[in-house]
């Protein structure tokens, strides 16, 4: 029957109808899909305007096979054998998609901030990886398969599976391995993508390479700016010494343009202003110069900090902050102050603690610095943080350096100096507390919400 012209087997008819239906559906799907947000890249190195990565984004079509978690961190991403072995095992155990179909179709969106994966249809987000969490990108050609493998930091929340895969077996973790006697090691994730061809894979890798360049270049310049600012704004005088030199830390800070003010929390001002100093007898002129300098400097810092508080805290939180500051100034320990503040700010705003540095007296500065380190807040951000971390102010490094100014002073005069400096700081901090409380009240009245 099947060989007679014009007569088609009913089974074939059904089959063909199904095939046509599927083709039609696929075609409909393809026409329904939106156009990707993409740009033409200059050849042969696929260069893209950095502004696009900084202020825009670029999309590429990929297939998302899945994400492997708890991969040993020592995995060499350049080793084809190692990576393929992991992928093969994962595919066998259905942790990664086996057959590639349109169900794995996804879109990778790339910018200088993160890579984002969404499903091609429906655009549901699969995952997002910040650039600083990416350790390496590899291209592996496995016969007709063109894989792009991205090694990233372990995401504690785990990762979703492609729709065709069963749930990940979460019991396969390194903690269970450690129960059998293995040593716990640092872990990472492998994001496994497939693209159509070698050119597409190279393009994706080169785009990511350019992103890394932008990010690391920006961070490096940041680091340079902070180093200059830090060195420029470290004070060079003891408060109580007479000087008619009006060029001070404020002048030096003015050498910076407005860009410097983007780092209100990077001011690592030495708190030597409130430390014992050389014993030149105080004079009204001296006190005025000292007060003027301190007031100007502290006022600027206060202004910066309050501006930021206003944007980051609610009115109630500002009042809580004022209360904590008041308690600290009235005798509660630096430890308690730090803990309470940490609780108030939470994880997302713990960087606000950096801005408090200028207001912590020298005697508590070491504890404060140690506390900042324990909660993972340092001078900088991201990858350059460790390098810059060594530029913490040294406790009391200059507070005992009386140099050649010792002559002519008396013990009473020294105590007087200390008292006047301490009084000055007390006054400033009290002013800060009052201003902050007032800020909180005014925000209440304005009905401002953060």
């Amino acid at each position: 029957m099947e060989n007679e012209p014009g007569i088609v087997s009913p089974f074939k008819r059904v089959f063909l109808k199904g095939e046509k239906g599927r083709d039609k559906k696929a075609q409909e799907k393809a026409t329904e899909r939106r156009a990707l947000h993409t740009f033409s890249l200059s050849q042969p190195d696929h260069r893209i305007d950095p502004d696009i990565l900084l202020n825009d984004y670029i999309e590429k079509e990929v297939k998302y096979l899945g994400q492997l978690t708890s991969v040993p961190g020592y995995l060499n991403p350049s080793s084809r054998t190692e990576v393929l072995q992991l992928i093969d095992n994962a595919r066998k155990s259905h942790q990664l998609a086996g057959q590639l179909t349109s169900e794995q179709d996804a879109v990778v969106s790339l910018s200088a901030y993160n890579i984002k994966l969404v499903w091609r249809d429906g655009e549901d987000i699969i995952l997002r990886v910040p650039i600083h969490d990416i350790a390496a990108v590899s291209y592996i050609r496995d016969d007709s398969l063109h894989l792009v493998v991205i090694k990233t930091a372990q995401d504690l929340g785990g990762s979703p599976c492609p729709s065709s895969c069963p749930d990940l077996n979460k019991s396969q973790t390194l903690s269970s391995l450690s129960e059998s006697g293995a040593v716990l090691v640092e872990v990472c994730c492998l994001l496994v993508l497939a693209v159509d061809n070698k050119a597409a894979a190279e393009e994706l890798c080169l785009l990511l390479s350019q992103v890394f360049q932008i990010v690391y270049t920006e961070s490096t310049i940041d680091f340079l700016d902070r180093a200059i600012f830090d060195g420029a704004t470290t004070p060079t005088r003891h408060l109580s010494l007479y000087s008619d030199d009006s060029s001070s830390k404020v002048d030096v800070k003015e050498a910076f343009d407005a860009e410097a003010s983007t780092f209100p929390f990077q001011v690592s001002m030495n708190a030597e202003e409130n430390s014992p100093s050389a014993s030149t007898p105080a004079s009204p002129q001296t006190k005025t110069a000292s007060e003027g300098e301190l007031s100007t400097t502290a006022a600027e810092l206060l202004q910066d900090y309050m501006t930021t508080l206003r944007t980051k805290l609610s009115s109630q939180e500002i009042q809580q902050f004022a209360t904590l500051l008041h308690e600290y100034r009235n005798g509660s320990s630096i430890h308690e102050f730090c803990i309470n503040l940490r609780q108030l700010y939470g994880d997302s705003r713990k960087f606000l603690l950096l801005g408090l540095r200028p207001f912590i007296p020298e005697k508590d500065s070491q504890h404060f610095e140690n506390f900042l380190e324990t909660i993972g807040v340092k001078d900088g951000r991201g990858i350059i943080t460790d390098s810059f971390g060594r530029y913490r102010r040294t406790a009391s490094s200059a507070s005992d350096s009386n140099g050649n100014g010792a002559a002519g002073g008396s013990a009473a005069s020294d105590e007087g100096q200390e008292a006047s400096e301490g009084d000055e700081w007390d006054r400033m901090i009290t002013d800060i507390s009052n201003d902050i409380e007032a800020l909180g009240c005014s925000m209440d009245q304005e009905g401002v919400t953060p």
Partner: protein
Amino acid sequence: MTMEEMKNEAETNSMVSMTLYAVMYPVFNELERINLSAAQTLRAAFIKAERENPGLTQDIIMKILEKKNVQINFTESLLRMAADDVEEFMIDRPEQEFQDLNEKARALKHILSKIPDEINDRVRFLQTIKDIASAIKELLDTVNNVIKKYQYQNRRALEHQKKEFVKYSKSFSDTLKTYFKDGKAINVFISANRLIHQTNLILQTFKTVA
């Protein structure tokens, strides 16, 4: 030194005069081994001429290079040569702080002079910039420590020079940002030379005031 004197000094020791001490001083040092008298006479003559006509030494050298048909990038070459210690600027106080100042200044000049070798490799250049940042910070910290410890009567001159150094450091940073957009290395070399010159001026100022 008063502010007025500082300004005059700055004009006299402007950037163009860097050629005198970076290029000619090593030549005079070599010549001294051969003919001490001639070398000293030449040195004095060049110093006087440069003081009266800032930039004269550079003009002479450029003409010599042109005459000899030597094709070099003068700015880049100057940068490579600028790391050498200039005896006239070294502070000869024995105290540790002043030796630290000499050392930090030397370290900064050395790393700046390596820019031409590193600038074409992005990864290495970024590391160089980080090293420059560290060196600038360490020099400024040392400057701050010395100013604070010794509390000079004429601290205005020192503060002014520190301020100038910071200004040129910031300018160097801005030049780098522009370089990463337009790729023109020559501007980085020029800015680095300026920063080296400012480093030398800091040493000279401390040497004068201390």
